[in-house]
């Protein structure tokens, strides 16, 4: 009897231990970020955003220990695909946070359709197509796309700044196309004119000829560059002694560029821009996030304040955490319950409230900003105004937005309204 009891007790203990072991099994979460190439500094800050969110969660979600596996990319779609495949096939993750860059997002949207049990929560990529064309049921984006980040900027530079004719220099891939589209829709409708668009390959080293090709008689130049390319351009522009005024794309005047070494970034002082964050916004939630960011890393291992990338990755992680906690960390059904919860998440993020539309695309706030120099010599994005609740169709009716077509090198046209 006692032997039977002992055996029962032992097997009981064994069962408990086993179930405890299941509960203890680590929750593997994959992430991709650009850790090589022109957008490296942005990728590094995105990872910082993830690390802060993870630390804030105490390394645990719904009682399960979290293991974060980061796969590096170089902003090319095939590198993102390789990274995602590695995470899914080798590391067996069921959730990926990422990618960072526009065309990577389109690649992972397509990839997500082939792995229906994996949930991809976009890191910071901002191509329109990722959630607008053939949206995938397991691809979620808690940040605005490049066009939404430009909402209101066109009207602002035309009316408040008086830039009536501009030229465009931007990188030749989906995110800058989307940014220029968002800008042009507002700017051209308000009566502005884009006289020239120059598209340069991502990772361009030599801007000499591009700079020489700029027309003389424009009021400003719209710069849709990012990371290393932006720094390169500014350096070479200052070498030629040019004096044009600029309008910045969202990642042109981001902390990834404003915190770079060298003096050329001073050319940006006074540059109007818009995007998903404003460094000097005085909302308490934003200030709290900036403080958290600054306290989490020593000053030489971070930017002066969190970049767009850190903020987006931080938000993506928190959205995931919220949904995972609602389903008790249960992904055993292939993540179906988790995705249903995720689609309903409303984030009270540092950069304003974020909710998703039917395509699992964020409806969020856009900030119009202007670069200013702080007394200590650091550059910051002065807050000008917010454009709340920007939708993917930028306030147009779905039909009218569809009529504009997809962003490309030449679309949308910018005909002066006579």
């Amino acid at each position, binding site marked *: 009897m006692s032997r039977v009891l002992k055996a029962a007790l032992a097997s009981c203990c064994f069962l408990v231990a086993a179930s405890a072991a299941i509960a203890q099994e680590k929750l593997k979460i994959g992430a991709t970020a650009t850790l090589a190439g022109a957008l490296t500094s942005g*990728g590094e800050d995105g990872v910082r955003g993830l690390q802060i969110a993870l630390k804030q969660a105490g390394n645990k979600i719904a009682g399960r220990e979290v293991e974060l596996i980061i796969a*590096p990319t170089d902003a090319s779609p095939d590198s993102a695909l390789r990274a995602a495949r590695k995470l899914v096939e080798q590391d067996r993750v069921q959730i990926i946070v990422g990618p960072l860059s526009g065309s990577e997002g389109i690649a992972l949207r397509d990839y997500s359709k082939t792995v229906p049990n994996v949930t991809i929560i976009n890191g910071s990529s901002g191509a329109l197509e990722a959630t607008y064309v053939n949206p995938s049921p397991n691809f979620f984006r808690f940040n605005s796309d490049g066009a939404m980040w430009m909402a209101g900027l066109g009207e602002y530079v035309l009316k408040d700044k008086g830039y009536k004719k501009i030229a465009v220099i931007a990188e030749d891939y989906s995110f800058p196309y989307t940014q220029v589209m968002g800008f042009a829709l507002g700017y051209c409708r308000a009566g502005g004119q884009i006289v020239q668009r120059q598209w340069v*390959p991502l990772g361009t080293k030599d801007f000499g000829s591009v700079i*020489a*090709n700029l027309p003389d008689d424009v009021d400003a130049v719209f710069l849709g560059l990012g990371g290393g390319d932006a720094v390169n351009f500014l350096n070479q522009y200052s070498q030629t*002694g040019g004096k044009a005024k600029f309008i910045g794309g969202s990642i042109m005047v981001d902390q990834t560029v404003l915190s770079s*070494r060298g003096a050329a970034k001073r050319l940006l002082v006074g540059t109007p821009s818009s995007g998903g964050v404003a460094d000097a916004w005085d909302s308490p939630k934003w200030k709290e996030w900036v403080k958290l960011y600054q306290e989490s890393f020593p000053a030489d291992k971070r930017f002066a304040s969190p970049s767009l990338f850190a903020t987006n990755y931080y938000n993506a992680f928190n959205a995931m955490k919220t949904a995972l906690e609602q389903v008790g960390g249960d992904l055993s059904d292939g993540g179906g319950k988790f995705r249903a919860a995720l689609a309903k998440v409303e984030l009270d993020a540092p950069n304003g409230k974020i909710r998703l539309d039917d395509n699992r695309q964020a409806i969020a706030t856009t900030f119009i900003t202007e670069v200013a120099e702080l007394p200590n010599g650091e550059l910051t994005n002065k807050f000008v105004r917010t454009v709340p609740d920007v939708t993917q169709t930028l306030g147009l009716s779905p039909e009218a937005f569809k009529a504009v077509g997809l962003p490309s090198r030449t679309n949308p046209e910018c005909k002066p309204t006579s």
Partner: protein
Amino acid sequence: MSSFVARRPLASLLILIAGALFLWLVFAVWTPGMEAAFGRKRVFLSALFNGITLGALYFLVASGFTLIFGLMRNVNLAHGSLYLLGGYLGFSVGSATGSWVAALLASFVVVALAGILMQVLLFRWMEGQDLRQTLVTIGLSIVLADLLLWGYGGDTFQVETPAWLSGPVQLPFAVALRSNGEAVMMTYPALRLAIFLGAVVVGVLMWLALNRTRVGMLVRAGVDDRDMLSATGVRVQLVFVMVFAFGAGLAGLAGVVGGTFQSLQPGEDTKILLSSLVVVIVGGMGSIPGAAVGALIVGLAEQFGSVYMPTYAVMLTFLIMVAVLAVRPQGLAAVRR
């Protein structure tokens, strides 16, 4: 020269006309009709100048590459890594000392030392085994690239331009006329001009050293017939080490130069290796004048391509390479034996 004119009167005339036309394009003020056809003159001139200065950078890298190949028949595929190593070193030294010249010197010396180590520790043991050497250099370039990624991260670095070289200078070329008839002169970054002049000086010095000194004589003799040279009692290994050191040092120097007017990041090594391969294939393997000609052609092709046909610019250099391989496979300036 005169014999060429006598032999090929028609070709000479055509070259003369082309040269005159080119000079006129550079110095004349363009008419509105021309501007409509070719774009603005400033764009043309700046593509021309940028092409030449880019060619200067390529020359610095490729001359070491071609020298090493010419003498040792060693296709050093780690040459790009030496460039990147030099660039990063220059960045570190430059930001530590604040001196650009110190960065140049330090990179040259350290990368030259690295070259000596490569020659003494690796290539001496596999002399004459082309395939094995090539594979070893590929392996070396992968190891170096990873070490540099480990040390410097994937970020973009830029060597700081010295104050005396930053900013623009005015060149005596009119690009347009103001409405009052006053000519608008072209401005151009001083740094790029300095790089061009530096490359010309290096090129001339190399030519002089190769053709007018005893060491140069040894090197040339080694290129022609290595075995015979060593049979005459010359310590060929020492010549090899010196040439390898110099070639590697030039790559390091070029790294600092490239890091100043462009920037440094992982992947630069293969990019510059590819460029120098194209340069020496176009110019002729093992020939210094060939490297100069090839570098100029590739630099100009890249810049004019990026202005006048941006979508196909990448292809243009390779089209040139294919054309040269088809018509003159030994390279444009190669010596025929």
